[in-house]
């Protein structure tokens, strides 16, 4: 029992990170119907940005409280990652609206390849690791043993909840969110009604990247190690989460993320750690084949 609860906790932590990345996929897919293949690598870029900023801040202001340093790193990483994503949309996706259907996906694959190799070039191919940022944990007594809850796990889940609520509020209650939902329904009509479609799409990319940056900083807090190749697999898993939850649906992405996190952790704990990625990829294939609209998604109607 205690082992199971422990794994559940680990799964939820990992799932939070996937959920945050998945929102970027799902929002972009909802609004322009493309799979932003480079999003996983934007996440990887954000981890690097967070890593360097953290090292920079701790070396410049040695005595700074760790909490304050983390908040500064988080905000700065969100801004800088958003800038990357904004630029990528501007350069690689915006000129392709109205091009043939697979063009944005191919362009996104190109961008993904570029990002991976760019980071490898400027930061080297080795893994970068930092000592744990937040130490400590407390134990939770269970019926038949103890469960260790690390403070960083609480931080990750807390941050996820707070930021998800904030973004949920933006999408549901602000004029930007209204514009996004309008573009999602009918881009041409939204434009006719005076919505700046290009700006709305750009902001969607910016929001997705900001959440990916949150995920990136939390990933850094949790694992403390990153390499240039670390965008691909989390990216695919987060995309799986988005598909599983129903692509286009924000709560779906979070649910999907938590599910993928749980499945991955429980699979590694009870079956085989070697095949944990196989499990994730299989879920992706199975969901797409048998349940393409996911848990909360709307069925896709093919228009002629």
């Amino acid at each position, binding site marked *: 029992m205690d082992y199971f609860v422990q794994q559940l906790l680990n799964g939820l932590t990992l799932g939070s990170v996937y959920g945050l990345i998945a929102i970027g996929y799902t929002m972009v897919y909802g609004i322009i119907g493309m799979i932003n293949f480079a999003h996983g690598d934007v996440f990887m870029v954000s981890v690097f*940005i967070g890593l360097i900023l953290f090292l920079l801040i701790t070396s410049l202001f040695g005595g700074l409280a760790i909490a304050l340093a983390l908040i500064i790193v988080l905000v700065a990483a969100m801004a800088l990652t958003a800038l990357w994503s904004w630029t990528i949309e501007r350069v690689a996706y915006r000129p392709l609206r109205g091009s043939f259907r697979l063009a944005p996906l191919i362009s996104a694959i190109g961008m993904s390849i570029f990002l991976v190799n760019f980071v490898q070039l400027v930061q080297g191919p080795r893994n970068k690791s930092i000592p744990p940022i937040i130490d400590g944990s407390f134990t939770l007594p269970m019926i038949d043993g103890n469960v260790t809850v690390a403070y960083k796990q609480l931080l990750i889940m807390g941050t996820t909840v707070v930021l998800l609520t904030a973004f949920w509020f933006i999408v549901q209650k602000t004029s930007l969110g209204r514009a996004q939902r309008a573009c999602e329904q009918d881009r041409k009509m939204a434009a006719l009604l005076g919505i700046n479609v290009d700006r709305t799409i750009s902001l969607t990319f910016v929001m997705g990247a900001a959440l990916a940056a949150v995920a990136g900083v939390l990933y850094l807090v949790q694992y403390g190690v990153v390499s240039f190749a670390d965008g691909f697999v989390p990216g695919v898993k987060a995309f799986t989460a988005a598909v599983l939850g129903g692509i286009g649906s924000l709560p779906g992405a979070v649910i999907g993320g938590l599910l993928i996190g749980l499945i991955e952790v429980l699979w590694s704990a009870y079956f085989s750690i070697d095949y944990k990625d196989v499990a994730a990829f299989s879920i992706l294939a199975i969901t797409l084949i048998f349940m393409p609209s996911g848990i909360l998604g709307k069925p896709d109607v093919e228009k002629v």
Partner: protein
Amino acid sequence: MVGTGKRREPADLQASPGFLGAVKDAGFLALLTFGLSFPLVAFNAYQHLTAGLILEPRWGLVAWACGIAFFARLAWNLFGGYISRGGSAAIGAMSSLGSRTGLSVNHIRWIGLIWLLSYPFLAVALAGPGGALKWIDNFGIQILIYVMLGWGLNIVVGLAGLLDLGYVAFYAVGAYSTALLSTTFGFSFWLCLPLAGIFAAFWGILLGFPVLRLRGDYLAIVTLAFGEIIRLVLINWVDVTGGAAGISGIPRPTFFGIPFNASDEGFAATFGLTFTPLHRLFFLFYLILAMALLTNWITVRLRKLPIGRAWEALREDEIACRSLGIDTVLTKLTAFSIGAMFGGFAGAFFAARLGFISPKSFEFMESAVILSIVVLGGMGSQIGVAIAAIAMIGGTEILRELGFLKALFGPAFDPAQYRMLVFGLAMVGMMVWRPRGLISKREPSIFLREKKAISGALVKEGHG
């Protein structure tokens, strides 16, 4: 179209005319470059032996990047109009070159073929027997493998319009079936080759069957997932595949049973020649050339058959196809499995050529390279794919050879790192500027009375 984003062409800037506007715009780009390069380029986090990660500032590099961005953009804003006009004129001249000089695609094809057939002899004549090894092996054979893979994938992506991101899986199936069959059962290469193709086609059907009713981009992701699953299984199923260490000691191809070695039964002794390693390379070169040309020939033939026409129709409009009574699943499945079969053949050759394979050769990046060759070649154009493979694979090899680049960028300069960087950017640039590929003029494979080549821009996806 409403809501269509416009690229910022120099013409757009006329709203803020003159020098000041150009400087402002360039300044914005420099600022953007600074923002993008601030933490990633400005600091190198390198692992110190004892002190953990240490930040090493590189502001000089950032300054260079921003300066280049500023002045390049300024120059483009001020003189871009001329460059752009010159550029399109050059492209126009290039595409009309063929008709003016009377060089048709047919002529180019024959010249290319003759050149290919004489390539190993030319290499020996120009570089000597020692130097030719590299030119035949690294350039000739390596490029031809990718040409063949590109042509195989071209059937799936270019003709049938199915974006396959896991093509390397079939390459892996071919390579591993050859390796396993020859090391455990002692099958010869010539027996393994067709078997590898059959296995790969079988896997193509097996994987294709459930996924082919998915829409384009979902299909792409599922094929990616399958490709990764196969690779992960190859890594983890150590008992059979040898895991990450791979399989070695795969027998080399023989000249219809005569091995290429220095022994008395060897190729050299049998034909009364003095033994040199060149014989095997010559043989491998002509073998892969024949395999690639066979792929091409079959593809060109298939395009004229009803099935080939159905592929192209499917690419253009799936719903129209279905309403005309074309069995879309069967059509897709044939394209998928035939493409997979050629991937399997190439894999068999790859395994036998090196004598060693490991999962490292079958990563997603490999799929991406093959896909980018097909995309750059113009998705559907056979000659375009060949040119793209020569340019991309040969280009990297040439970068490796250029000694002065090492002098320029320091001894740590590794062109392989820049290769993928350039591949990625080229894919983006291709989609933005020439989504119809480098060779954007299409000749119809079926026509009434006379052939009318149409611009690639007139067809919806890929080309006719």
